[in-house]
């Protein structure tokens, strides 16, 4: 009766927030994640924080990777995290930020609940390894 096999896959949302229009990096990451066996939902460009929250909640992703190159992380990321909390989705979503973030901001973001910040030149394997080791266990 319960001989059925579970088929768990790591689900990720790769998201672009705000006005920055460069998604080459996001594409590369989406492909690398796919090749690592993850299921990747890509948000598309120019999303507002509430769009990202909607996608993360509905898709029930394990990992939310936000790519942001515009420098607006200090305004946008807190809104995303607040939104996740509002839908009770913050605790079991691993929030990652990729892009150009100054060191002092990185500390603030981590304070907010971002698990890790990956700057330019981070090897893809490092990010994937981090996700494998930190993906939230779910009931």
């Amino acid at each position, binding site marked *: 009766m319960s001989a059925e096999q579970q088929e768990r*896959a790591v689900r990720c949302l790769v998201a672009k927030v705000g006005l920055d229009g460069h998604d080459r990096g996001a594409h590369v990451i989406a492909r690398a994640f*796919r090749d690592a*066996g993850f299921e990747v939902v890509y948000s598309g460009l120019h999303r507002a924080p509430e*769009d990202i929250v909607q*996608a993360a909640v509905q898709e029930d992703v394990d990992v939310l990777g936000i790519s942001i190159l515009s420098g607006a992380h200090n305004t946008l990321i807190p809104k995303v995290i607040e939104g996740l909390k509002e*839908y009770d989705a913050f605790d079991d979503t691993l929030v990652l930020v990729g892009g150009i973030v100054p060191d002092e901001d990185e500390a603030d973001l981590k304070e907010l609940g971002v698990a890790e910040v990956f700057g330019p030149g981070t090897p893809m394997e490092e990010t994937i390894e981090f996700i494998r080791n930190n993906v939230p266990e779910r*009931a």
Partner: protein
Amino acid sequence: MGGPDAPAFADAPTLSDADAALVEDLLSGSHRALARVITKIENRTPGYRAIVSALHEHTGGADVIGITGSPGAGKSTLVDKLAATYRERGDTVGVIAVDPSSPYTGGAVLGDRIRMGSNVGDMDVFFRSMSARGQLGGLSTATADAVKALDAFGKDVVVLETVGAGQNEVDVVRTADTVAVLVQPGSGDDVQTLKAGILEIGDVFVVNKADMDGAQRTVAELEEMVHRREGGTTGRGAGHHGATSTAPTGGGHAAESHDGGHAAAEGDRPGDADDSWTPEVLETVANSGDGVDSLIEAFDAHATYLRDSGEIETTERRRYAEEIRTLVRADVGALATAEIERRGGIDRLAERVRDRETDPYAVAEAIVGPIADCVDDATDGDRDDRAD
């Protein structure tokens, strides 16, 4: 198999407390709970069956629409516009978009969400991407269960979107009440692929990107195929080969999709002596939203037809029969797979067959025999052989 006694239905899977709370949350409108339930369905997390069981009695309220078509036909864009149009008239919408996964890594890029530009930020459009996780026959079960979750949640319309490329996908859209097949103009090949089984499942055919060259020709080709199928299956005159008898109505709405669509939906259908459904061929331009209103009217007309003709009962019965069959087959298959493992795995068995020690029929008999014995024992009255 059934025996003289009616099978006992009392032993529905039992809900754990946490799952019961989750079901409760879903029914009371929690998006998070809905999302989590769909994840459990997708992952086949232990206990998901009890959840779907518990949801079943709350389903049946949604119109379920399947949309299929070849890659690039514009399904996602059209679904986006459909969802927005349904929202304008006050309906809540659920969308399940199925994308293929890599057969090598199991990974997938689920890109349909990018096209959902008209509905971002609107929580009353619940959009969920699912990947075909290479599960044999399991995809249609998983999507049908996900549709149930959306239905029980209270969505008025549920749209199921999939690439129409094979049996798996056809099985998926078959779980919908109304199926739209999307074709893009100018590629005779597309219409060719329709012959491979998809033509039969379409209740509505949509030529999307109708502003492109060749749209009229594709519409005409589809009209002809639809009416040929008509003549073939209903037997109301083999002479009804497309162009001749249907030219006034068919040609009319091919040229003017909007008005023609209305006419076909309201006007000539009841007048038709035959009360079976004749698939419509509509034109849309998903990018601009042209033709989407007519398409929704066609969906509504089909839903009305299903209800008025009583066809819905037949459809539902067939669908649930298929669900039961699929589940039973999968479960018995799983039992057999476990038994194969116990006997040293399929490779060892195959090697023994290769060595002429035994043969495939004997192996199958040896594996299925004990299962058949258990079934016999169970029908003899004693039903507590479930322990293991």
